[in-house]
């Protein structure tokens, strides 16, 4: 059970990384044009 002392913080840190990524993408305005972003993948590179 001593392994929990390591595993719990590890899982929390990993989850925290995911949360941090979400916060970053929100602040960077990536959720402001969801329809546009969905369509943009169809645009061919020139």
């Amino acid at each position, binding site marked *: *059970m001593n392994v*929990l002392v390591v595993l*719990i913080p590890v*899982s*929390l840190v990993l*989850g*925290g990384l*995911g*949360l941090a990524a*979400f*916060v970053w993408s*929100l602040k960077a305005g990536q*959720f*402001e*044009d*969801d*329809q*546009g972003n969905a*369509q*943009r*993948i*169809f*645009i*061919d590179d*020139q």
Partner: protein
Amino acid sequence: MSTIACAACTAVPPVQEIPPVDSDLQFSLPGIHCAACIATIERGLAGVSGVRDARVNLSLKRLSIKGSISPENVEKAVHDLGYDIYPLDANTLKGSEDLAGKDLLMRLGVAGFAMMNVMLMSVATWSGAEGATRDLFHLVSSIIAVPVVAYSGQPFFKSAAKALRVARLNMDVPISLAILLATGMSVYESVSGGHHAYFDAALSLTFFLLIGRYLDHRSRSAARSAATELAALEVQTSQRVVDGRVETLRTTDLAVGDIVRVAIGARVPVDGQLISDHALLDRSFLTGESRASDADQGEVLQAGSVNLGPPFEIEVTQVAQDSTLRRIADLVATAESGKNSYTALADRAAQIYAPAVHLLALATFLGWWAFTSDIRLAMNIAIAVLIITCPCALGLAVPAVSTTAIGRLFKAGYLVKHATALERLAQVDHAIFDKTGTLTVPHVTLPDTLTPTQKQICVALAQSSEHPIAKALAQQESDIPPAAITDIVEHKGQGLAAMVEGETVKLGNGRWLGASFHGLGFAQGSQPAVALNVDETLRTGARDALDGLTIPAEIVTGDVPDRAERLERELGVPVTALASPEYKHAHIQAETSRGRRVLMVGDGLNDTIALASAHASIAPATALDAARNAADVVLLKEDLSELPLVLAIAQMSTRLSVQNFCIAAAYNCVAIPVAIAGYATPLAAALAMSFSSITVLLNAQRVRFKT
């Protein structure tokens, strides 16, 4: 060919002009819908000199441009690419950024993170962890859960506190109580080494309710941004008089001391002192009094008043944005709080519902406590009852549908100004169209028999009017410098008269000019009136719109009979000619008294009364400011063909609202007895409750796919 020429001239920087300062411009692009549109516009603009960055936002149907380029050049470039474009006032849009949505999304993300981790921890407890291990997991869970509940639950707590402060109950009171009780009880259990903690229940309740709240916010913000956009469209430009010539410029560029001309039916753009002798104004926007009021020379007029009389000039005394902001607030308030009767019903239901919920939970708690003497069990069941009974779904039933429908219509290019407009649109059974400017667009030619001076006078007269034909004339002949004219008087529905060097000049219909013809004419002094040839073409999609309507339609126009008859033959719809504004109004009232619900589609000042008195009304974006204000729905693009879709969506949203009520009511009927009997755990209750909200919200989304 013109495309190439224009693309070339926009690509060449105007040498004589001072380049505009580096700025951030916003435009509305109502016609875009796919990746190809984004690519065409962004790439097309990338080649235009002065554009540093062009970005299309498909969700908002907006274009933002960074760089040193004038708005006119951007409009021209995008127009040449084949898209409708309208400039938006950057100052009006400022602050309309969706901060509340971002805030909700953040709280939602945090709640989701905490919920997943706490659920993971609780797996250990459910699978048999004991003693110190279980206490450790409970402790870690509480360390995560308590701050997250405090942060993510705030939208509910704040709303509940607001209601309690005025001694009222709303949906958020039972929600907050359930979240706080579940958390508080779990903390107590953790500290005292108890077997079960319900942090996961508290967090999942918060998470699911936040999803509902966020979806609701998104469909609402579509209407909100539409309202803001409308405001940004309205007081966009003003007409400044410089050395006797009228020039159009952005209202925000006006300075104190400028002379501004206010056309008939237009709003006073900024506060200013009246220079002309006399003005007739509708100040209903400011005072709530709809009676027309007079103003004499020297009086200060407030921005927002509508000019009902002849054009007048004001000297700008204040350029503060106050008045504009006041109007935005007004429009947003209309879109947001203009709740229809169904919503009001749901609100009233909540007033009875909330106390009933609390009493029910309290009775359940006391009952179970009395029978089992187990205060902890009684508490659990009471919390489950609280969660089950919060009538979120009931409260969401109508706003979810109407806001989604408004968003859907916005996509089709229709701005719904009023929430109840949808319901009224769903009920219409008779459509009345205005002809000129609504179904047809004018085209005027000045005959060569007119002298150059007379042409200049014509243009000057046309510039003073907001009538679509006059506007078309002024626009077509913009190369001709207007003559200096004084004492302009507009005779409603007849024409314009003015003085030039002691002679009376008139632009108006033939009968009014005393000539033998009926159409547009020009008269100078005692010379016989000259007929000006006005052609008209059907607006794009006008035929499709009339063909697609399932309700009877008719056209009522102030125009001459022969042209009306031609249109009648062309479209196969009954046409009434020579109708005055009063006749249109009386005609609508007559239809209404016969039990019909009339849809009015019109654009002119002569339609304004009709637009306001009809059961529901639609005006094109090219309509007079006054008409746009009176209408429930504004059509942003040129094309009329989707008009039947508006009615179909309105009918569908009414149907979906009723469906949602039934879903919510049926759900509560089943769930409440189960909860009171003690078969619903807090977790199951949280899930089931959220599912009913989400079912209602998803059902509302169906209106999106209506074609």
